[in-house]
């Protein structure tokens, strides 16, 4: 990206250079580092205004007046060279990168392009090439392990499953903690739209998945509030600014094609035992989920199934793994760019088809993009970009109990899952259980499908009012409709009479921004550059989500609601509309390019806050200072030193409709009996409404995040070694939260402003080039993130409260005073005061657990990643290793596998008695070690079931996340062909992992993107991808 941008600037500066002279000199400028052609290098005849720039391959052609002329080759980021022409007609040159200038132009809030050195806050830039052709169709996943301060966790290996991202921790109790996503200025929805129960349904996509990674030019991650304050309330969780490719800065027409094919295999399942089969207490029972039956020692050779078939009694070592297919991901993108000067165009078409590892699961995406920019003769700049995306997804529902995945972790080791039929001729399931469904039956007859049609685009108008003042007006829109259908055939465990849910999510968002920018050099004093910005934003967000449920299907395997006999219309926040008006400004001061100060402020007016008090202001200030330049300190050891600091405060408004008390349609009951109004009684329908159990907040105010940050950038040894270190401390206050009230008040909760939460963290990025010999180079980039999050207070008298979302009773993701955000409150094993587990002196089992105790925290102690890139000539090999240290995962899957005796460890010495760890209370304040022997089955089951501390595991994991090998065909080979560049490569993801405290791969979160993290509630496992890549430009 750097080169492209520089090319763009170079092009602009060189305009107006006159041509009409005597001698013609040509040549090619390459980078000394990697020998690649440098586009956009300024070639100037010294002492004149005459010059040109190199083309996309680094070639130039210039006419010089005399032999005495000297050519000046300059390029930002490289050392300027002067060459006397003499009598040469060809000048080929290698430019060496300029160690003094670490400068890189980055895209900051509101699309402002800035020099990295001027920023007093943190921003990490990821080049498009770092996320493309990486065996990964979801942009967020391909950022994993590459960015400091960012925590990215995918849901699972199910195709299209959502990915959660938090930048610098969680800052809101109840609001969205996902960063704002901005694509070419378009505020881009990354919602996951969980419209059904996330405990049981398939994992929907996060809508950033609608973006084609191949179209991305660069991603700039704006980390703290100081970086994102100009985006306003929406960016209080940080912002990810994505710039897509355009024809900008390119001369002529270029066609590029990228193609990749990946295979996908299931990965991260634990090891299973193959010594004992179906049954319990060493007896075979043909309806048991357990594998605590007799050993495969020849004493029992055949058994009778529930259906009466006599089958061999033996181990089926792969009966779990065999459920899964080898998936495939096929991605193709063609893009055409054309441009000249300020006029350029792009057209691109991309397609991705994924077949998932779970039978009948898939994910697909088609993108069509057109964009153009032009500068009219009158100086008016216009530009626009429009993308259509079609994303489809099909998945089986997951979750505890009645789902394919829920059953998969309860398959007896002697059950021939794939070898024997799972359905009869009429499609009725055959299984060892009468109430549950065979996993293969579920994957075939319980399907959740989604089809997203999305259009997003922008339109820009710009004009330079004077040399130092310009104005831009930008309108953006992002509209999608997600048509979902969830089908459960007749006979499904969860819906015995069959079920069709038609569920539609329509979302639209529009933004208008009017921005005046000013920039003037040498104001007041020599060397002081002053910049200013004034902006105005208008925003509307609208969501419409109707949902129809049709049950009691009358025709098997035909899914039209007309065949149902019962219909219900589920209403859950059907419509949500909110608007915002924002006024923002920025003043920046740059003294001699080594001292920078910037002030910003924004006023938001939100429709979701009370009319009289819906306006709120928040400021930020950031400073950056480069002592190496200011005091001339630079040396071969200390090449660059920058100090930065900032303070920022960002407000966040409420979600819509939090202020009023409303009435809701009546419903009564629990899982054993329930009625929903209107009641069909006495031959008519009787409506019933009740006051909503949540009390509105007539005096709600915005919540705030206040952030302080300091950092340092150091370049050592002529910038062969670089350090970027930041420390931040954010305080979230005035949280908008539904606080529990005494139910006898007639209500359950009230919405109010309460609480305080802090995040303290360090981010470290170290980059180094340890080896650089000839054409061989080894680059290392390492990043480290450690964030300490603490909920400091909730409300007076309230020590904990559940996080909004779906949860099982007694396994509650919570905020808890003194604990990190998102801890799981559940039943902890009872312990004495020296933390020894208490065991019942009669049974040898743990004494009853203590409810309402914190038993797990999903937040990792630290994250770290190391990326190594080896380049030799046209060969490049990169390998990314990362780790998540600490934090816990609450796993139904593993608790199930252990309780049912499937896991390998449960087969070890099964005939030997065991003793649970712990002590027995002597009743007199003393304790004796537990010495009560129990059976293996009692032991492993005694460690805890689903709703117990026994389901909590350490989530530490090390991973070889990504390996990419690529080869650029030498230009010499291509010179006779129409191709400019051909790159071929292979890549793989998740090639290896090691999790010391978890029997499988713990990097899962079945609850999907959102505030509830750290659960594997019987979800799909992870996947390993590997494949081949091809990229052709001509």
């Amino acid at each position, binding site marked *: 990206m750097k080169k492209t941008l520089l090319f763009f600037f170079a092009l602009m500066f060189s305009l107006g250079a006159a041509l009409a002279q005597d001698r013609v000199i040509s040549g090619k400028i390459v980078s000394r580092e990697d020998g690649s052609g440098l586009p956009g290098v300024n070639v100037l005849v010294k002492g004149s205004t005459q010059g040109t720039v190199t083309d996309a391959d680094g070639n130039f052609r210039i006419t010089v007046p005399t032999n005495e002329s000297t050519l000046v080759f300059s390029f930002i980021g490289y050392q300027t060279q002067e060459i006397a022409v003499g009598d040469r007609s060809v000048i080929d040159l290698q430019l060496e990168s300029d160690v003094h200038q670490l400068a890189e132009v980055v895209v900051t809030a509101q699309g402002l392009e800035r020099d990295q050195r001027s920023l007093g806050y943190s921003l990490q830039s990821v080049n498009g090439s770092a996320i493309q052709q990486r065996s990964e169709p979801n942009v967020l996943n391909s950022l994993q392990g590459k960015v400091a301060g960012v925590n990215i966790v995918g849901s699972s290996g199910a195709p299209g499953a959502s990915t959660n991202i938090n930048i610098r921790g969680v800052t809101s109790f109840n609001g969205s903690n996902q960063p704002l996503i901005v694509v070419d200025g378009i505020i881009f929805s990354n919602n996951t739209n969980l419209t059904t129960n996330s405990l049981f349904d398939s994992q929907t996509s996060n809508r950033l998945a609608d973006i084609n990674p191949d179209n991305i030019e660069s991603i700039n991650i704006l980390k703290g509030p100081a970086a994102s304050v100009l985006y306003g309330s929406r960016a209080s969780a940080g912002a990810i600014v994505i710039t897509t490719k355009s024809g900008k800065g390119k001369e002529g027409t270029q066609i590029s094609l990228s193609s990749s094919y990946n295979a996908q295999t299931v990965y991260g399942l634990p090891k299973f035992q193959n010594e004992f089969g179906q049954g319990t207490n060493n007896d075979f029972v043909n309806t048991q989920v357990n594998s605590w039956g007799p050993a495969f020692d020849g004493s029992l050779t055949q058994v009778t199934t529930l259906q009466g078939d006599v089958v061999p009694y033996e181990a089926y070592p792969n009966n779990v793994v065999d459920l899964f297919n080898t998936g495939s991901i096929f991605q193709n993108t063609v893009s055409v760019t054309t441009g000249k000067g300020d006029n350029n165009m792009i057209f691109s078409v991309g397609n991705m088809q994924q077949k998932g590892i779970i039978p009948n699961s898939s994910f697909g995406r088609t993108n069509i993009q057109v964009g153009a920019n032009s500068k009219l003769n009158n100086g008016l700049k216009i530009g626009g970009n429009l993308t259509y995306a079609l994303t489809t997804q099909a998945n089986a529902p997951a979750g505890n109990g009645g789902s394919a995945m829920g059953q998969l972790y309860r398959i007896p080791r002697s059950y021939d899952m794939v070898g024997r039929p799972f359905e009869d001729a009429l499609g009725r399931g055959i299984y060892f259980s009468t109430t549950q469904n065979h996993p293969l039956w579920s994957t075939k007859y319980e399907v959740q499908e989604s089809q997203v049609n999305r259009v997003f685009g922008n339109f820009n108008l710009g004009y330079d009012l004077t040399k130092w003042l310009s104005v831009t007006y930008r309108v953006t829109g992002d509209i999608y409709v997600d048509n979902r259908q969830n089908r459960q055939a007749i006979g499904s465990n969860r819906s015995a009479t069959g079920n069709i849910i038609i569920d539609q999510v329509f979302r639209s968002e529009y933004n208008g921004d009017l921005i005046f920018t000013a920039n003037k050099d040498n104001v007041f004093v020599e060397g002081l550059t002053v910049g200013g910005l004034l902006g105005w934003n208008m925003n509307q967000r609208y969501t419409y989500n109707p949902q129809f449920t049709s049950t009691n299907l009358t025709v098997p395997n035909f899914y039209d609601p007309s065949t149902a006999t019962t219909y219900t219309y589920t209403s859950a926040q059907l419509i949500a*509309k909110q608007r915002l008006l924002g006024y923002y400004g920025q003043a920046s001061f740059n003294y001699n390019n080594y001292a920078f100060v910037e002030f910003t402020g924004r006023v938001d007016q939100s429709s979701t806050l009370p009319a009289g008090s819906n306006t709120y202001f928040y400021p930020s200030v950031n400073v950056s200072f480069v002592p190496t330049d200011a005091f001339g300190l630079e040396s071969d050891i200390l090449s660059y030193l920058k100090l930065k600091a900032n303070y920022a405060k960002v407000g966040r408004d409420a979600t819509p409709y939090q202020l009023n008390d409303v009435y809701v349609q009546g419903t*009564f009951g629990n899982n054993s009996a329930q*009625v929903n109004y209107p009641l069909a*009684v006495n031959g008519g329908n009787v409506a019933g409404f009740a006051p909503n159990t949540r009390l509105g907040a007539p005096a709600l105010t915005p919540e705030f995040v206040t952030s302080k940050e300091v950092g340092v950038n150091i370049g050592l040894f002529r910038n062969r070694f670089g350090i970027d270190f930041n420390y931040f401390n954010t305080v979230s206050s005035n949280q908008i939260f539904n606080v529990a009230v005494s139910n006898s008040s007639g209500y359950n909760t009230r919405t109010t402003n309460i609480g305080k939460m802090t995040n303290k963290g360090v981010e470290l990025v170290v980059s180094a080039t340890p080896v650089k010999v000839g054409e061989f180079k080894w680059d290392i980039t390492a990043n480290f993130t450690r964030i300490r999050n603490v909920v400091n207070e909730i409300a007076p008298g309230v020590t904990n409260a559940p996080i909004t979302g779906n949860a099982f009773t007694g396994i509650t993701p919570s905020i808890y005073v003194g604990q990190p955000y998102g801890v799981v409150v559940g039943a902890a094993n009872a312990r004495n005061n020296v933390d020894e587990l208490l065991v019942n002196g009669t049974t040898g089992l743990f004494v009853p657990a203590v409810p309402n105790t914190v038993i797990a925290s999903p937040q990792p102690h630290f994250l770290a990643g190391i990326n190594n890139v080896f380049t030799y000539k046209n060969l490049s090999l990169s390998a990314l290793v990362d780790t998540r240290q600490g934090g816990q995962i609450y796993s139904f899957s593993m608790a199930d596998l252990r309780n049912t005796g499937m896991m390998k460890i449960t087969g070890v010495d099964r005939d030997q008695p065991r003793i649970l760890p712990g002590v027995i209370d002597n009743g007199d304040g003393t304790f004796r070690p537990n010495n009560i022997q129990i059976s293996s089955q009692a032991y492993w089951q005694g460690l805890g079931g689903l709703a117990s501390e026994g389901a909590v595991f350490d989530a530490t994991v090390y991973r070889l996340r990504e390996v990419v090998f690529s080869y650029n065909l030498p230009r010499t080979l291509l010179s006779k062909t129409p191709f400019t560049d051909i790159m071929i490569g292979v890549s793989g993801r998740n090639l290896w992992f090691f999790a010391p405290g978890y029997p499988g791969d713990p990097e899962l979160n079945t609850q999907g993107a959102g505030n509830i993290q750290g659960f594997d509630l019987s979800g799909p496992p992870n996947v390993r991808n590997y494949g081949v890549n091809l990229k052709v430009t001509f």
Partner: protein
Amino acid sequence: MKMKKIYSCLTIVAMLVVATGCKDFLDINDSPNNPLEVSPAVLLSNGLGGTAFTDANELNKFASTVMSYLTGTAGQPAQYDIYNTTGADFGNQWNFELYDGALISYRHLIDRAVETNSPYYAGIGKIMMAYTFSLATDIWGDVPYSHALRGLDDTQPRVDKQEDIYKGNSSLGIQSLFDLTREGLADLNATSSALVPGADDLSYGGTIANWKRAGNTLLLKLAMTISKVDPTLATTVINEVIAGNNYIVDNAQNLRVAFGSAVGSQNPIHQYVNVTSFRDEMIVSTRYLNLLQGLNDPRLTLLVTSPGSKYTTLDNGYRGTLPTPSTTWSRWNTSITGVGGAGPVRLLTNAQRAFIMAEAATILPGVTLPAGKTANDYYQEGIKAHMAEVGVTAAAVTTYFADAANASRVTLSGTAANRQQQIITQKYISWTGNGLEAWNDWRRTGYPTLLPHQNAVGVDGTRPVRAVYTNNEISRNPNFQTGIFQNVRVWWDVD
């Protein structure tokens, strides 16, 4: 275009957008998903549904197993059956059925009725509020009452003493349940009401005369409940109601809440007895079967199913192998569950009224029955009323009463205690399907005589005499006293 033109163009565009009126632009925060105001009608129907669920859903499972009607075979009922109940139970009932369901609906109903000048709705609201609060206090003892249901004005309401709830306490500003009911009756005597109930009245379809009878019968129930701890007040109230002569005298006047047969509209008892996966958590108790068989009672076949013409029941607290398949189990019959769930939940009945009058005349010396009537008359009236209610034919009733073998069963005899035992035992049969009322009577009188369940645990092996405050409420409201277990009697439960 010249620069100046463009500049002014852009400025105009900008000004236009800004000037569209920020106020209206942002004034969109009234929810389109939910009404901000509703009619009294929908609040009444919701309140009645809430009271019916409080009475007939989970708390009924609890009381019906504790009272040896049903035996718990699995899940929560199996716990109730051995007297186990904790603060983890009934949170949903307290919250969604009682306080945040029925009671808050009545609170809003009364307010809306006053606003719309509709005293009929206010009267019904007050009578139902009194009935529903009596459920709460009878189950939990001291509960929030006078300060409850105030929303933001009191998010941690005071807990009122049961004595004050029943009798009122002017120094604490507590209106008695009797006065609340009387106030409701007074509202119903208004000459007109702007809005009048109709189909939304799931009990009487808008017949105000029946609501008056229900109100007076409620006074009888409330008085009888406190008759042991305060016989004087009970006598006064009962005499007042008898003198007024406007109580339920016909099964058609029973206060019941109607349900339908469609999924989502069904009687809760039908759902947990016949429909949901929780249906196999209870079976009819052998003790109950023995009681009715011992009385040769013609109601048995109408109250209890006998798949394959055979009663399959289990003794309370039984912990052995369950009979299979569960389709053979004896369950409540359609006289309780309704056909397909289209049966009402019974709150106040004609039989109950008759038994109250019989018992009052037996144990309260000051009670004056209507001229020419005896306690025995009301005892027989109660039995006959319930027999008719469950569908015993008039001829069969006559036969039963004419059978000499039943003479001692349908005639009061012996000491006052003996007669009270007869009355309450028949009342117990008449409350089949409504465990809470039977539990109230048992706690107050000790009748019917119930033997301890097998394998009983509880706190001290004794049958629960109250429910424990829910954990939720204890954690949210410091006014609740902790450590009150299910073996602590409520105020009106005295020896």
